[in-house]
């Protein structure tokens, strides 16, 4: 695995995520959120899971990011996040980060290099989806249908009342 690529992608992703968390203007935060997800998809490519990387770009950048910018447009009264930042939130986040870092660096069994694997083809993912994971697949289908119908009902205007 290429270490130069890892460093570049890590810096890009973390910078974009930090920008998404701290920029005052909402549209800029949403766009750097999209860049952060492209960075994460690049990580997936680096780890050999190309299909997941492509699905990530497709779903997150192509759909969720567009959804977020549409919602920003439709709720446009306060597009800036005014007010002082929440100190308590920052302290909790740093504490959680510290705890996770201590746990990771303490476990010596995790400092291993990548073993050789055979490439994970789309055919194999499809085969596994239809044999071992067919019930989760049906459940996810039902879940997505329910989410679609639920979202439609939530935003439908009440024409009959009033």
């Amino acid at each position, binding site marked *: 695995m*290429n270490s130069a690529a890892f460093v570049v992608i890590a810096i890009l992703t973390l910078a974009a995520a930090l920008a998404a968390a701290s920029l005052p203007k909402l*549209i*800029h935060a949403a*766009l750097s959120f*999209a860049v952060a997800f492209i960075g994460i998809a690049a990580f997936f490519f680096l780890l050999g899971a*190309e*299909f997941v990387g*492509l*699905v990530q*770009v*497709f779903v997150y*950048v*192509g*759909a969720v*990011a*567009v959804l977020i*910018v*549409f919602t920003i*447009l439709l709720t446009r009264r306060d597009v800036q996040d005014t007010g002082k930042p929440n100190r308590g939130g920052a302290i909790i986040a740093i504490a959680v980060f510290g705890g996770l870092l201590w746990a990771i660096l303490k476990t010596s069994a995790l400092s291993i290099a990548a073993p050789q694997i055979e*490439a994970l*083809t*789309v*055919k194999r993912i499809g085969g596994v989806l239809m044999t071992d994971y067919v019930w989760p697949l049906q459940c996810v289908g039902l879940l997505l249908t329910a989410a679609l119908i639920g979202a439609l009902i939530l935003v439908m205007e009440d024409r009959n009342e009033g």
Partner: protein
Amino acid sequence: MSGSLDQIFIRIKQLLLAPVAGAPDWLMQITSALINIFALLGIFLTLFALISVLERKILGRMQNRYGPNRVGPFGLFQPVADGIKMLIKEDIVPARADKVVHFLAPILIAATAILALGVIPYGRNMTPFSIDGGILFFFAVGSTTELAVFMAGWGSNNKFSMLGAMRAIAQMISYELPLIITTFPVVMVVGALSPDAIVAAQNGYWFGVVPHWFVTTPWGAAAFILFFVSGLVESNRTPFDVPEGESEIVAGHMTEYSGFKYATFFMAEYIGMFAISGLAVTLFLGGWHAPIRGLEFIPSYVWFFVKLSILLFIYIWARGTLPRTRIDQIMNFAWKFMLPMAFTCIIAAAVWHYAGRGVAGWFWSLAVLGVVYIALSILLDTRKKFATRTYRFAE
């Protein structure tokens, strides 16, 4: 003889790679990728320039006039004049526009369009980047275009731009579904997402004459028509160019862009057209395969570009012939007609496969498609039913 002419570009590339033959692996990969990228950019930017003038000439001929014919022989150097004009124009950015977003929008839209060109097989062994999930890569990159269109509309700080961007995104999202679902029958029948595998599955001929292209099957023909129409919409071409309707909202999301940035938008639209046509050729028209066994001596890339040119001519033809449709007509058409027909194509492809892939399969899948089409036509009957005419006379 035909084999060496066919692979001539592969040999040229190997000649170019010879000086770095002893270098480490990553350097070889980067050099090889760079050669692919430069070749791709060179060919498609030239094609873009050529098509921009050919479109104007063909539209002119359809409207009973000459197109541009002053600059160069038959006006073919017009893109040079256009390019110089675009480059020397003043770059105006609105004072209250969001500078970063306004600047990045044309770059992003051009980048995603060019990225999509990288996975299409242009000839035997001539796919620039052969990814296992190539079709998914194409659509993932294509769906990023919507974000770029939104950035263009938002960054201009202009109500017309915002309105144009919202219309464009609504149209593109609605037609992304039929676009992607019509590729499912092909992927299902071939069993792979890689464009190379899809092209390889379309070789061979029936009785030595009719090629095994997917467009010769009923579900393939229906899926090709649906894919092509969705491609027309995705590239915002007439009759679906509501986002850039010149008589309505100036230039939609491209209103506040001048000079080179507008040229970038223009180029991105055309390269998007090339990418979708290239994918249509790969999925349905047999990629770089010849139509008859006797003509196989012609190199594979020539066949690809011939088919691509035919599809581009149909794009230009549609632009010269059809009037613009209304936005609600466009959305109704997508959700009420194209989506059910796209799902029917999947079922028809499955019927074709399981009835044996021969004549019986042909008739059964045609029956499935015909039944659903007739049912949809009856259900969606939008002809106005006029009441009896009454007259009012002055008293």
